[in-house]
């Protein structure tokens, strides 16, 4: 398949994934209502608007909260390093045929970068000062190309929406289980006719957070590979990104300063355990990514 086809498929998947996540969130709210003893109609009437409202709020505040969590600031063109970053972002935007994202800088000695923004028109690419200092032009270009691909593939939208929903499901399930434990179940203890349904709903509430998180992680890993490939297609230079990833790997900090909220958005997870391949990882193992880039 051509990169072009991958991107088209990705856009379609994006809609499906977002819908799936919304349905999952709704199902959790519905199950909680059921276990608590509310009638199904009531659970629907409350659950659906709450779920949609929650997503709308997460969506509209996503960029601000990511930038705040990363303590990022706009790049300063009067400093040469940051001016060259702005230049590189402009160049990659031209290569991708996208509007130029705003360039941001995060003060941190780690080498890392992330992209955020709901739509390509208002996207932001943020790079750490460590990356600006330690990467050469070619490597920086590779990193920016990777981030530009996330924007082009609408990955940032999926990431923001799914991260929000995964968080909401975890929170709701936690509250519901505690309430059940302390409160001893809902008020509708009329009889045992619905006991199976209740047990199923209960099991669902327990499993939903794990399930939603795993779904999100699987998507995230797959999209990292695609962004690597597409980034290399933009720069026509897979080696640049491969070397940047090598530097990132060699440079992984012992005490990551990056915020955990932003971790899945970074080009490489700053938390060391992500070197291993696991279903809990936000990114594929760096070595595997480098290998794939080198084989292009």
């Amino acid at each position: 398949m051509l990169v072009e086809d991958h991107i088209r498929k990705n856009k379609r998947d994006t809609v499906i994934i977002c819908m799936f996540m919304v349905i999952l969130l709704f199902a959790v709210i519905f199950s909680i209502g059921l276990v608590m003893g509310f009638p199904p109609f009531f659970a629907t009437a409350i659950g659906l608007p709450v779920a949609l409202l929650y997503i709308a709020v997460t969506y509209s505040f996503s960029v601000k909260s990511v930038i705040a969590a990363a303590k990022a600031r706009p790049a300063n063109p009067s400093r040469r390093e940051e001016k060259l970053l702005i230049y590189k972002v402009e160049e990659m935007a031209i290569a991708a045929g996208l509007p130029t994202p705003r360039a941001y800088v995060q003060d941190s000695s780690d080498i890392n970068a992330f992209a955020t923004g709901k739509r390509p028109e208002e996207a932001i690419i943020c790079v750490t000062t460590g990356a600006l200092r330690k990467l050469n032009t070619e490597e920086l270009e590779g990193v920016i190309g990777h981030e530009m691909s996330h924007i082009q593939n609408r990955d940032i939208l999926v990431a923001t929406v799914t991260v929000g929903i995964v968080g909401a499901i975890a929170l709701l399930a936690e509250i519901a289980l505690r309430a059940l434990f302390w409160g001893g179940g809902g008020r509708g203890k009329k009889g045992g006719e619905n006991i199976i349904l209740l047990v199923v709903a209960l099991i669902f509430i327990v499993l939903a957070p794990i399930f939603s998180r795993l779904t999100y992680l699987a998507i995230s890993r797959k999209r990292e590979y695609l962004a690597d490939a597409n980034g290399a297609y933009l720069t026509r230079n897979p080696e640049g990104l491969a070397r940047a990833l090598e530097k990132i790997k060699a440079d992984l900090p012992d005490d990551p300063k990056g915020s955990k909220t932003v971790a899945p958005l970074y080009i490489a997870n700053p938390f060391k355990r992500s070197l291993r391949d696991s279903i809990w990882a936000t990114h594929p193992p760096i070595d595997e990514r480098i290998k794939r880039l080198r084989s292009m």
Partner: protein
Amino acid sequence: MIPLLMGIILVVVVALIFLSYYNRIIRLENRIDNAWSQIDVQLRRRADLIPNLMETVKGYMKHERSVLENVTKARAAIMKAKTPQENIDADNMLTGALKSLFAVAENYPDLKANQNFLQLQDELTHTEDKISYARQHYNDTVLKFNNVVETFPGVIFARMMGKQEREMLKIPEESREVPKIAF
């Protein structure tokens, strides 16, 4: 009754397919035009930077007349160019001329310490990179357009619309790779 119904369905399906191809072809064509104007903007921008560069360099490089002349000549060629290919050829000339100018500049420590010169060098390198990426994007877009226009069933609709495949920009072999200047 049933044949009529099937006929109507067939017509509707064909019309829908045509519509989607029509939109795709027009959209890609617009993207090609836009990609070209992107190149054009950067070429002008680069040409506009040259007089400034000349002004800065003149005082230092008195004995490098031919190097300076080549740059001026290449710039004039860009200003004169009409077709896309002429533009690109003139730009390649300018790239070569600038490369030798910056190489010669290495021998002039005073010039290399000049803030103005450094800034111009950064910006010229940046526009050069932008031009090569804009060219790449132009060719990518033309490739997409040609793929739609030349393959079945797009080829039928393209004929009906009177659209033909577009020409990609030819880039000389040695400059195919983006020149990398270490900072």
